[in-house]
């Protein structure tokens, strides 16, 4: 934990993740309430975005400095209290202003609801509490901006289509689709924005494709792969070796593919293969439906398995750990070449934990 706290992340990377790769609304699917319901006009969306940004900054600063010693169950309440303080101060200020009355009426009960925004608690718990002050401030601005951009774009489109105006200026005398002002319109806009973001990343930032969680994880637990623990454990005990554990399930799909390709190209010694990977039992022929399901999983469409609800606090992009790659006797240079051929960025390669030895026998 202490090491994690000291470890600093470049600000550019935090901003890239907060705004694009792990956008809180479009990718992490948190803090939807203001985006789908409240941002029915540009001015209200801008108001909510600015309030949310303020809450992010103050909460993350507090979380990274003084709240680290407070138990988590109390911290969650503190975030809400801080959010409430900022929200109600801004409400009180707007009540006293002549121009603020209309805004308050338009925002309705959604402005006070910003105090209970889930995305603030998510970022504070998964990032600010574990990182330093500078990183937390950057993250607050990045995540706040990521949410603000979505809110403002959503507000702009919904006001234009739903009311025929932009910030009160009439564009269409007859609004094309009045229903866009309803939450239905908000969800529609978010759906198209999420697809657009996905397209942008696949075109301009292909290296980050595999890190995007454009999936909701399903909870159905997979059975652990069957093994023969008695024999293996006894044999290991005789040789003073640690018992073999089943291989961990790979999370990052893009990497999984590359790892398979890497293995298929590499001639690995059979002995090593036997030690590290127990042969799975022959599976019966799958029917068409099961095969389709498998295909969906491979393509990344399948909503990911094995996620607890606790994972509402488990989506931080900085917590990603790619699986270890056992390279056998392959040299480290060859491995890197293989990975580069799979079109992975340098950034991704740096994150890999590569175990094995090169030809000179040096551990990498």
């Amino acid at each position, binding site marked *: 934990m202490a090491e994690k706290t000291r470890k600093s992340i470049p600000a550019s990377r935090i901003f890239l993740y907060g705004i694009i790769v792990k956008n809180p609304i479009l990718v992490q699917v948190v803090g939807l309430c203001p985006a*789908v319901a409240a941002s029915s006009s540009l001015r209200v969306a801008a108001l909510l975005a600015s309030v949310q940004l303020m809450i992010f900054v103050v909460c993350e600063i507090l979380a990274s400095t003084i709240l680290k010693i407070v138990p988590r*169950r109390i911290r969650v309440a503190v975030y809400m209290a801080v959010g409430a303080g900022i929200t109600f101060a801004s409400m009180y200020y707007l009540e006293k202003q002549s121009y603020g009355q209309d805004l308050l009426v338009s925002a309705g009960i959604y402005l006070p609801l910003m105090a209970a925004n889930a995305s603030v608690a998510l970022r504070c718990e998964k990032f600010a509490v574990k990182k330093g002050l500078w990183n937390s401030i950057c993250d607050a601005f990045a995540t706040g901006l990521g949410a603000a951009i979505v809110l403002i774009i959503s507000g702009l489109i919904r006001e234009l289509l739903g009311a025929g105006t932009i910030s009160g200026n009439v564009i269409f005398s007859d609004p094309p689709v009045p229903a866009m002002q*309803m939450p239905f319109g908000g969800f529609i806009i978010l*759906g198209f924005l999420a*697809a657009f973001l*996905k397209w942008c990343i696949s075109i301009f930032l292909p290296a980050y494709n595999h890190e995007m969680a454009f999936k909701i994880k399903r909870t159905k637990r997979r059975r652990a792969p069957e093994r023969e623990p008695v024999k293996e454990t006894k044999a290991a005990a005789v040789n003073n070796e640690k018992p073999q554990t089943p291989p961990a399930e790979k999370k990052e799909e893009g990497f999984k593919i590359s790892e398979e390709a890497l293995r298929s190209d590499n001639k690995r010694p059979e002995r090593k293969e036997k030690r590290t990977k127990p042969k799975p039992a022959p599976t019966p022929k799958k029917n068409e439906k099961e095969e389709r399901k498998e295909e969906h999983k491979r393509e990344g469409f399948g909503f990911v398995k094995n*996620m607890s*609800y606790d994972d509402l606090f488990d989506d931080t992009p900085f917590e990603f750990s790619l699986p270890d790659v056992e390279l056998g006797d392959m040299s480290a240079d060859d491995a890197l070449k293989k990975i580069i051929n799979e079109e992975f960025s340098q950034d991704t390669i740096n994150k890999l934990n590569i175990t094995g030895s090169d030809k000179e026998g040096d551990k990498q």
Partner: protein
Amino acid sequence: MIWFFSMLRAALYTIFIQNLVFNGGYGSSEAIRMSAKPQRFLPFSMMIAFFSTVTALVCRTLDNFKEIKQSGSAVHAALYCAVLISIYLFVALILKLVLDPDKKFFSTLGIAALNTLVFAVPLINRNAGYSYTESIGVGVGSGIAFILALLLINVGLKRLEANNDIPPLFRGTPAMFLYVAMLSLAFNGFSGSSLFT
């Protein structure tokens, strides 16, 4: 008997006519994320119903005080927020002392208590001028509305997963957003709204 029907009417209105998740967007992120976890539907929804009912009752009681009744919307919202936080901390303390559950339970409890759906209930009650019995109806109804939303989204997720015709760019979250939009539109239809007029 009148109080019972008054409560039932408010609950049914909250579940179907003004489904808080689909028509109001309250707690929609929790609903979407939670929909992938069928075995937790009931306990989570019960927690939401409990917190929203208790918060609604306490806030309704506070509204009887003259000074509070005459105050502005900012003061009301701040007070309701304080009530919600206090109830959450009180329940967490009691559970910690009596049952001492694990950290995951408290994490779930925090999410169930401190979300937009629960916080919206007393604010809606105040705006609509609901009585005590109606406030209880809205509180319980919000829990049932939430579980209805979870079931509908869960069924949709399964079907979206099995559908091979969705374009690759729309697979996953975009398709799910569009599906929830359709549900939201359907529930808006119950309340008499229309698409183009």
